């Protein structure tokens, strides 16, 4: 359908545009973000906030852990 086609083209164009705008992080920014994320996790743990919440609020993605063998 022509209209759907136009929408798809628009979506692709806008995706390309946003990709082109994304500036890569410097090493300093990268490590600062890593450490800031660590701090968010530490504070969540100390405040009894489940990490699942951080996935929703901060977009974090944690590995799902199996039951420990012990």
């Amino acid at each position, binding site marked *: 359908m022509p209209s759907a086609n136009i929408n798809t083209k628009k979506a692709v164009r806008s995706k390309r545009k946003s990709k082109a705008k994304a500036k890569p992080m410097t*090493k300093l920014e990268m490590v600062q973000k890593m450490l800031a994320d660590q701090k968010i996790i530490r504070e969540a743990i100390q405040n009894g906030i489940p990490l699942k919440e951080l996935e929703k609020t901060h977009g974090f993605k944690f590995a*799902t*852990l199996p039951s420990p063998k012990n």
Partner: protein
Amino acid sequence: MALNLQPYHLQRIDELTYGFTTDNGIEYRCSFLSYAEYFINHPDLAPYFFSFNLDLRNKNTKLPRGADKRIANTVIIIVGDFLMSKTNAVVYVCDSSDDKEAIRSRKFISWFDYYEHSSSDIIQVSNNFKAGDMIFYTCLLVHKQNKRFKDMILAYLDLTKEENK
């Protein structure tokens, strides 16, 4: 009396978190956060990189003097089991908020060196690098039988190399 070096009993707090309590009653929590976003130059490997987080459950915990080797052994078990998938790799970045990052780095690295026998399946690569005015302490852990371990080491070294000025 023989020294007890057994790992602490691990508890699954929820699907994303492990926990254990030391003989001194200190509670720790562990998790693995995806680091895929930092490996955009290696999209095929990116989903398999995680950071390892080891945090105290209580903010005002006073840590006793002296090393508790059971903590080291517990961490080796947690990280070792995680790497047993033979697809994942773990990047450890030392927290620098209290200026103890160098000590922390030495300790973490020594855990996997000291327990050479139990961690013989794990390759450890450490790379410290300068960014801005700071030195950052990092290391990579990957299973020897991970089919892509060489690519993962190269991707990690690429990530942690210093920027050209």
